[in-house]
């Protein structure tokens, strides 16, 4: 994370999000910082509840009203946080667009698909309603929907899940945005459809040159699509680096564990190494490293002091572990984590 000379495309620094609930304050995001350059793809990886979606919704101004947001998120130097809807709409949907996790519920059931895409174009104020609707058909064609002209007049319920997600992509690309945020775009889809959607994403990203933030819990997806990766745990980034670097030389035990949980065809004979236990509650985080209770390398220091992001031996590679040095060189998960059979593993609740 180097400071750049001119304002980066998107720069997030020390983003924090809290939700007051009946049981206390939930610290959903505890200090997220990154910057995104034009055309770059950043993957954000983490388990559910790690704050990866919340941090992106925060900069789009899409969190529920009760959320308390602090820190900064700048698009080309302009602050996004705290803007009124009217001012945010200059950027939202036009410069920064978003694709959501569940295509089944993300489209309005009572409006035609084409009209919903056309609305996004028309709202930008450049094209007339008629031209916007024509453009919507072109976009549907671009994302690979057959007979786009007639399908534009269909309602969302007449589309399959994959087609709906394509329509969502078309809607996000409607105004040729600079940044595309894809929040778990394939999680709710069939495996066969997932690959198609990723291919479509890659295609439109390539054609438009937009930068992309790809949020997922699937390390495989990130490996194929991203330039850099941020791993999140318990509301904050715990490791950040280029894809190759992070996959070959992880410097944080959690990342090692994630990689070890990933079945690989090219590593025949190797055992999977699941991470035992479950992520901590964000309601009352104990002192120390939030991963400590599940960490095979845990020491006394880990229980009292939460590690900052240390610069590691690699360039632009940071990791939140006091003992990252012990993970020098190429790391193989089975050497760090005990190989467990399913019977031994604590059940995930």
């Amino acid at each position, binding site marked *: 994370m180097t400071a750049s000379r001119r304002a980066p495309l998107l720069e997030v620094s020390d983003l924090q999000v809290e939700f007051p609930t009946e049981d206390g304050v*939930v610290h959903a995001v505890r200090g997220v910082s990154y910057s995104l350059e034009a055309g770059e793809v950043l993957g954000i990886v983490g388990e559910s*509840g790690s704050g990866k*979606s919340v941090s992106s919704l925060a900069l789009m101004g899409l969190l529920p009203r009760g959320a308390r947001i602090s820190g900064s998120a700048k698009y080309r130097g302009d602050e996004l946080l705290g803007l009124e809807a009217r001012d945010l709409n200059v950027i939202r949907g036009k410069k920064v667009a978003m694709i959501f996790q569940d295509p089944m519920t993300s489209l309005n059931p009572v409006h035609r698909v084409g009209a919903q895409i056309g609305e996004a174009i028309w709202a930008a104020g450049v094209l007339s309603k008629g031209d916007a609707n024509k453009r919507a058909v072109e976009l549907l064609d671009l994302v690979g929907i057959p007979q786009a002209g007639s399908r534009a007049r269909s309602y969302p319920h007449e589309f399959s899940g994959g087609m709906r997600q394509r329509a969502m992509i078309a809607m996000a690309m409607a105004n040729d945005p600079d940044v595309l945020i894809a929040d778990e775009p394939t999680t709710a889809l069939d495996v066969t459809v997932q690959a198609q959607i990723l291919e479509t994403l890659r295609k439109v990203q390539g054609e438009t040159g937009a930068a992309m933030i790809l949020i997922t819990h699937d390390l495989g997806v990130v490996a194929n699509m991203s330039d850099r990766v941020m791993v999140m745990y318990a509301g904050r980034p715990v490791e950040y680096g280029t894809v190759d670097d992070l996959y070959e030389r992880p410097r944080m035990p959690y990342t090692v564990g994630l990689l070890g949980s990933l079945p690989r065809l090219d590593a025949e004979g190797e055992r999977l190494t699941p991470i035992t236990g479950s992520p901590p509650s964000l309601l009352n985080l104990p002192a120390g490293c939030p991963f400590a209770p599940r960490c095979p390398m845990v020491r006394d220091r880990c229980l009292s002091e939460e590690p900052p992001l240390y610069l590691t031996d690699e360039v632009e590679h940071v990791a939140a572990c006091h003992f990252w040095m012990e993970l020098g060189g190429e790391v193989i998960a089975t050497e760090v984590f005990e190989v467990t059979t399913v019977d031994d593993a604590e059940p995930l609740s």
Partner: protein
Amino acid sequence: MADLETPAPVADEVVVPGGPVAGGGRGEFGVEARSQWRMVTRRFLRHRLAMASLVVLVLVILLSLVGGRVWKYDYTQITPEFSTGPSWGHPMGTDGPGHDTFAQVLRGAQKSVQIMLLVALFSTGIGVLIGAVAGYYRGKVDAVLMRAIDLLLTIPTLAILAVLSNKVRQSGSWFGIALIIAALVWTTIARIVRAEVLSVREKEFVEAARAAGANDWRIITRHLLPNVVGSIIVAATLTMAAAILIETTLSYLGLGIRVPDTSLGLLVSDGQSSAQTRPWLFYFPGLFIIIIVLCVNFIGDGLRDAFDPKQTRVRA
């Protein structure tokens, strides 16, 4: 009949109980069930308006059930002061012949509250039974019961009430009027319970219980009803509001409680004729009805919030 029927006031959303709880507080799932109840209780206690309403309602019910015996005047007693406004001696004034209005309101409230409580009890009993049976057995049983309810709803409430209360009136008992009202309002609860049972019976733990050889009665009472208990409690509460409004309306129309006994509706009807000269005769009994119904509605609202799991949901 638009302004006569008061189907479960504030029924502005579908009531969802606090998630599946198997075992109803006993046996293998006991811990979970107890903690859910604790959560519901805690949420309700935190609902200040509902708590205040509960206190007020309990006081009003106590006052109406025992107040008549303690108060210095009897509701039939004619005092020497007639047509006087509220004073220390007569906090709600007196009527034309000299009856103490407070004594009359206490008597009227007693009848209205008795009917309210009895209706809640009976209609919940019938409603839960019919609703659970229809929802659990589905198919023909369900179809027959639901068509019967449809039929009951097409018949004008007022016709049934008027006809039956003509018969009941000879005995002149509040008990009979309560039975009639209960016979009409149970359908709301039956429909709610049926809809919930229909959805809960598909859950895995019901399948598991069936696989373990539990019989229908056991499945219904141990597994299904504990899961819809939240909706039942909320619906039963709101039924009380409907019951007291129907009762007072009937009495106001001259089809419910009759002279020589009295009820809040009857008192309003009497007071209305002299509203210009003795407004207290009109205001006080009406105020009593409003306080009771308002409290019941607030309590129902608090209960619904307490049982609603959406309360703690946070988007992540």
